[in-house]
């Protein structure tokens, strides 16, 4: 904590005077993991990033580029070694009810049925009663109503991740962090999940930061695609995706800007990898 307090005189709070004040602002955020065997491991070089309220941002980058580190810092699971993360006018230094996390491969608890998994955020952290209506709404929204009593092992990967998204939304957070949520799914299921996520996002207008390996997934979902370099992670480029919504995979690839965007992201990634 002391390092944060003394570091970064160049990391002021996002100025209140700006017209579009970001919901989340990363200022010079870096992370070094202390490792006994390998010494210090620099996972993330100083990063600056703004997320406006309601933004859908996708982060693409090679494996081990610090994407997940960045997400862990935003989720309050880790503390940055340098810099600050602002959520509104507060500094994130621990988990917050304003942030929901969707984990890789759903990460449901196998001993709880779907309903109990989704209700988990409403049962823990000093909460007393579970608002059943809230869970019903979430189940309905994601088409899981009939599966409320099933256990995760009885569900397909896509349905498991639907439940994972419901769980992340249970506390009605303003921000949704998704760590390669559909990476374990087959291509078709993944496209269907992308469409559903877009629908959910258009309805609920959360601020989303989604990490992915897939360039097409990033372009399909994002307002803004952030391209990162291999470890230690840096932001190489931020690209806007000016494709109107709702988007569809049928028309996405034929959209005039799609090919150019995909080529640019790919070029950035291969350049960075060649240099690494």
């Amino acid at each position, binding site marked *: 904590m002391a390092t944060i307090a003394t570091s970064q005189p160049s990391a002021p709070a996002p100025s209140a005077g700006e017209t579009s004040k970001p919901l989340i602002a990363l200022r010079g955020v870096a992370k070094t993991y202390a490792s006994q065997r390998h010494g210090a491991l620099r996972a993330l070089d100083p990063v600056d990033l703004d997320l406006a309220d309601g933004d859908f941002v996708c982060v693409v980058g090679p494996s081990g580029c610090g994407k997940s580190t960045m997400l*862990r810092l935003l*989720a*309050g*699971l880790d503390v940055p070694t340098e810099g600050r993360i602002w959520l509104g006018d507060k500094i994130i230094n*621990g*988990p*917050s*009810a304003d*942030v929901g*996390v969707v*984990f*890789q*491969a*759903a*990460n*449901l*608890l*196998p*001993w709880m049925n779907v309903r109990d998994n989704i209700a*988990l*955020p409403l*049962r*823990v*952290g*000093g909460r007393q009663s579970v608002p059943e209506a809230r869970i019903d709404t979430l189940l309905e929204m994601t088409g899981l109503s009939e599966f409320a009593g099933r*256990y*995760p*092992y009885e569900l397909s*990967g896509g349905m*498991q991740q639907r439940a994972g998204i419901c769980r992340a939304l249970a506390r009605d957070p303003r921000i949704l962090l998704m760590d*390669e949520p559909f*990476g*374990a799914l087959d291509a078709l299921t993944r496209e269907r999940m992308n469409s559903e996520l877009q629908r959910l996002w258009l309805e609920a207008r959360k601020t989303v930061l989604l990490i992915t390996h897939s360039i097409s997934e990033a372009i399909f979902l994002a307002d803004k695609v952030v391209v990162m370099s291999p470890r230690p992670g840096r932001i190489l480029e931020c690209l806007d995706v000016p494709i109107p919504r709702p988007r569809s995979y049928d028309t996405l690839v034929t959209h005039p800007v799609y090919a150019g965007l995909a080529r640019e992201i790919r070029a950035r990634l291969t350049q960075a990898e060649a240099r690494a």
Partner: protein
Amino acid sequence: MSSIAAPVNSASQRSRSVPTAVITLGGLVALIALWQFAVTGLHLPPYILPAPLAVLRALWSGIAVAPSSPLGWYLPLWSTLRNATFGFVIGSGFGLAAGSGMAESAVIERLLMPYAFALQCLPKVAIAPLIVIWFGFGDGSKVAVAALLAFFPVMINSFTGLRAIEPERLDLMKALSATRLETYRLVKLPNAAPFIFAGLDMAVVYALLGTIVAEFLGAQQGMGVVITQAEAVTDVAGVFAALIILGALGMALHALVRLAEKRVVHWSDRGQNQGGRA
């Protein structure tokens, strides 16, 4: 693929399961035949090896009596079962508590682990005479030895199971600002349940062993007393019959634990696609 795999699978299951029963039964018949042959063919005296029929008669003579009869199996069996069960519950309870404490606190782990291993390396039945001196010839010493033997497998399995938690599951609870107790109760304990049940499975058999050993050393009642009394009058058929009863009791207790495990840990093995790290 699946349409081909399914019938092959069930066929192979059938071809395996039927012979298993036949082999088991055949083995039993062969064993009894060999036994009978050893007795009649080799002219072994009944105080070395009684005939199968004599053992069966001894077994039946203890069954075909009133439950309250001092000649029946029921009273000593009940005494042994009761003490073993108390010992199992107490030993497992302390085992789970100690294992949890060690898993949750590095200080407790460093404090207890050396002694726990020292205890495990010590042949614990050697402590039994001491326990009989401390707790007397009544039920107390039986329960205490049973608890002592049941303690270790549950402790070490709880500890291992609670530590074997996937980091993603801890991240989930951390992201939800769950308290330590909530994380333990809702995530770590169920996650460790398969390990704990493996410990309980061992513990229930050890508790029975502990009770019998304590009964050998001195008791008013119990299956251990039945065995020592039969031995004293070289009623070897009676000893065999008591061993058969104890074997059946051990298997029944083991089956009970497995049944409880299936009820509680119904999601195990099938839930393994969960929480994988990509």
